[in-house]
């Protein structure tokens, strides 16, 4: 049993490491709350990547040029990869991917609510790259310095790939804005639908976000929701101007005194409705994931059975080699 004084020392050493901006590594001692918070946050992030494959994957078979098809397929594939890097980070905390997957499938763990909105036109692919991935980058770049080592390293790799995603989105929108009137209308329509959900991606306002303070002390989180939201707006407005689209917020204007853009409040009622599962696609997304998982069960079982046979030399290939005197 660890004595009380020893526990105090461990906690002090831990906080000391964090305060010195050093990374916590998997076998270091860490407070249970730190571990729980990380597992929940990283798992939610991983689930978001996996569920996020669906709205964009929706357009792979219909992409209007072969170049766009290749880009989109590579992008959605990257998202599977990001999910896998993040699940790998949770494994270092003792959380098994299978358990996390189960929690996603039964709705016990969340994913980013943005993916509960539908992708209705090909412009949505561009706007997701520009706004949704852009917001994700704002959220994630500080996480490259988060206090937990495996998470920080996963985020470094993910941020580099996300930067490709954001650029491809913006480039697609620029190309479409240079096309026909219908295409320009398509882009504006997509911006109108995705702007507010993108702002919601940063989470509720700071005064309604109870966990932020502790997460910041542990340096899991390094900026508050409202700080990141402001940063995103400040970055995005000039990009929208360049693109020639209007952001659907009548309150949006430059505030010289603050040195930031003022902007309106998202519809937080809608946000909570979607979080609670009543968004346009919640049921569809989770059902899709469940179906893929269930339909794949026999394949995973077959591979596991084969591995077991093979480990014991009972697979047909080994038997064959034995029979023919070959080297097993």
């Amino acid at each position, binding site marked *: 049993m660890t004595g009380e004084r020893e526990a105090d020392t461990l906690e002090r050493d831990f906080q000391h490491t964090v305060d010195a901006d050093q990374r916590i590594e998997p076998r270091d001692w860490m407070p249970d709350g730190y571990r729980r918070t990380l597992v929940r946050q990283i798992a939610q992030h991983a689930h978001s990547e996996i569920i996020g494959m669906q709205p964009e994957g929706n357009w792979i078979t219909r992409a209007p040029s072969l170049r766009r098809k*290749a880009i989109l397929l590579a992008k959605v*594939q990257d998202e599977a990869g990001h999910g896998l*890097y993040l699940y*790998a980070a949770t494994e270092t905390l003792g959380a098994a991917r299978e358990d996390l997957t189960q929690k996603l499938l039964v709705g016990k763990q969340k994913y980013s609510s943005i993916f509960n909105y539908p992708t209705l036109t090909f412009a949505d692919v561009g706007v997701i790259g520009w706004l949704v991935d852009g917001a994700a980058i704002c959220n994630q770049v500080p996480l490259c310095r988060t206090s937990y080592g495996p998470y920080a390293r996963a985020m470094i790799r993910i941020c580099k790939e996300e930067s*490709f995603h954001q650029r*491809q989105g913006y480039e697609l929108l620029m190309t479409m804005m240079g096309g026909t009137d219908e295409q320009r209308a398509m882009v504006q329509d997509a911006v109108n639908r995705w702007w507010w959900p993108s702002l919601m991606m940063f989470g509720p306002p700071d005064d309604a976000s109870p966990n932020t303070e502790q997460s910041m002390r542990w340096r899991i989180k390094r900026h508050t929701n409202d700080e990141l939201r402001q940063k995103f707006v400040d970055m995005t407005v000039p990009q929208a101007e360049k693109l020639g689209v209007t952001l659907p917020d009548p309150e949006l204007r430059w505030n010289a005194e603050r040195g930031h853009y003022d902007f309106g409040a998202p519809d937080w009622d809608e946000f909570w409705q979607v979080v609670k599962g009543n968004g346009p696609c919640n049921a569809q997304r989770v059902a899709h994931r469940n179906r893929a998982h269930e339909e794949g069960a026999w394949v*995973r079982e077959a591979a596991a059975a084969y591995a077991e046979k093979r480990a014991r030399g009972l697979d047909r290939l080994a038997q064959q080699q034995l029979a023919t005197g070959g080297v097993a």
Partner: protein
Amino acid sequence: MSVKSSWPLWEVFVRGKRGLNHVHVGSLHAPDAEMALRNARDLYTRRNEGVSIWVVPADAITASSPDEKDPFFAPSGDKVYRHPTFYAIPEDVPHL
């Protein structure tokens, strides 16, 4: 039948190019070593082929102290559209 449908965890090490050591890059699930190698190739060398890959069952690793400095491997380039510079964006678009 007692076979579980979840696959064991493998730790992945990649030699990014000749002259470098194998470096731990992360983990993945696979039913056996052969599939683990193939999955590792797809997942961790998507942007550029590493020279060589090792996979090790995660439970076969014995660790000493927690003092480890394994940098998470960052990826690399076989499909040019995976790289941000592939997308021509005018220089005056900020923050992209």
